[in-house]
């Protein structure tokens, strides 16, 4: 089985977000970048699937050279090889178009992405990619089993879960419950240095959207403290003052 896992290079979850250049660019100063956590789950699941039934796992990233540490980490975790499409990942349509162009001739049996990136939060790349490739997409999956070329998956739906079946090939996006992330061991880290990382030129693709500027949420006013002995007063305040209950 040939599996492709799409990974995004994102700021660590502890990052305090600020912007530069008149609020038009994310401030990368002092920021640690990581593999997007949901993509890491997709990668781990891809490894579990191929360890069980054989196959290879390729990771693909649309990004500039500064995303290579995250790509090497994916190789250290266990991906067999990697592809970096050399372009700034401007938006979901652009990224999905790049990956679709590469994947179109590679006959992958399965393409996994994370549910969404924790920076752009679009959650759109998997769905657009599947649409461009004419494949089904099963989003927010919490389990996947493959038997005889047909997968059985569970996905989150609003207020519950749905079990679906889908024949290979298809695209699926990883939700938190899918698996637990793996910590790369020393052998993996050593091996990652020599695993193939192919850099591919970007195709000319339309950017579907452009971020014009960023802003931070307005600062919260002071917190109104309620003495613990008068805790019940909270309900009155929520009812009469905040008017939310």
């Amino acid at each position: 089985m040939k599996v492709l896992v799409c990974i995004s290079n994102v700021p660590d979850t502890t990052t305090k977000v600020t912007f530069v250049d008149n609020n038009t660019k994310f401030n990368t100063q002092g920021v640690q970048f990581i593999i997007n956590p949901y993509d890491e789950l997709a990668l781990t699941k891809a490894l579990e699937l191929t360890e069980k039934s054989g196959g290879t796992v390729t990771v693909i990233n649309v990004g500039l050279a500064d995303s290579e540490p995250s790509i090497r980490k994916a190789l250290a975790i266990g991906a067999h090889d990697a592809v970096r499409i050399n372009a700034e990942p401007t938006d979901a349509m652009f990224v999905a178009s790049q990956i679709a162009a590469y994947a179109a001739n590679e006959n992958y049996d399965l393409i996994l992405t994370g549910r969404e990136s924790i920076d752009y939060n679009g959650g759109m790349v998997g769905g657009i990619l599947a649409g461009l490739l004419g494949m089904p997409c099963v989003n927010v999956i919490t389990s996947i089993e493959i038997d005889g070329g047909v997968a059985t998956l569970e996905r989150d739906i609003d207020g519950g879960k749905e079990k679906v079946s889908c024949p290979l090939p298809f695209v699926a996006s990883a939700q938190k419950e899918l698996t637990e992330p793996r910590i790369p061991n020393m052998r993996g880290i050593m091996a990652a240095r020599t695993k193939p990382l192919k850099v591919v030129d970007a195709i000319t693709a339309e950017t579907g959207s452009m971020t014009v500027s960023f802003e931070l949420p307005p600062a919260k006013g002071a917190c109104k403290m309620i003495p613990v002995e008068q805790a019940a007063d909270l309900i009155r305040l929520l009812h009469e003052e905040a008017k939310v209950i």
Partner: protein
Amino acid sequence: MSIFVFAENSEGIFKKSALEAVSYASEIAGSNSCTAISIGEVSDEQLNALANAGASQVIVYNESGLNQFNAESYAKLIAGTVQQNGGSVLVYSNTYSGKALAPRTAALLKASIASGVISYPDTSNGFLVKRSVYSGKAFAMVNLPGAIKVLAITPNSFNLKSTGATLNKVSGTASYDSSEVKTKSIEVSKASGKIALTEAELVVSGGRGMKGPENWHLIEDLADTLGAATACSKPVSDIHWRPHSEHVGQTGITIKPNLYIAVGISGAIQHLAGVSSSKVIVAINKDPEAPFFKAADYGIVGDAFEVLPKITEAAKALKAK
């Protein structure tokens, strides 16, 4: 501009998120047409709710074979309908179904797309919408230059309209090839009687300060009294006190309820990212230095086991009035 909106039904009923999407579409349509698309069997009484929310026309695919959500067939029907009618904007609610359909229809329509949208478009110079990024830590203004724009709006962010208009129903004529639909639904399980966290207006959430899953009845009692959904912090779902589906925060679900009550949660930056857009935040923590108090509107420094029964009792008294 010709505005389209997908109105998702859940077992024949339009939920608030669907009516919000129709209201949003109607608002941006102004005096232009606002067409809602409904797929699956729905009664005229329910379809009337779409007209009331601002749909000047409802295109229906009223077939029992389409009752079960399927991203492939639904996306074909929606994209086909928009194409046939020269639609310029297509609106979804950013629910799990919306998240499946919006990108797929955007690919079919070669559209510009933005999800997690929290503003009406500003069309004075382009087509600008505001969306949340960095998991709620910031917002981005995004320009959509495409001839067709697909928007997935964040639930609980826009007002519902009530126009009193009557239903103008038309049968849809877009089609799809059923042999091309690969995904098949095997089983749907919904927690009965529980309020879906992603759509909840009120949320009561517990952290490690609750000391163990056996104490969750205190959270549930308050939630049940208020008609709220329950949630939890990441450590709590990581140690399996509560299911992953309840985890709110940067790597869990981002929510935007009217009221978020955090009990025994310190308020780490990753957690705050997922809840900071809540309209009113209450923090209950025995540590007066807990960072949550800086992000909250109301705070109580105290022991959860002492505070929760008191406020649950007060909530019961309020509801009984």
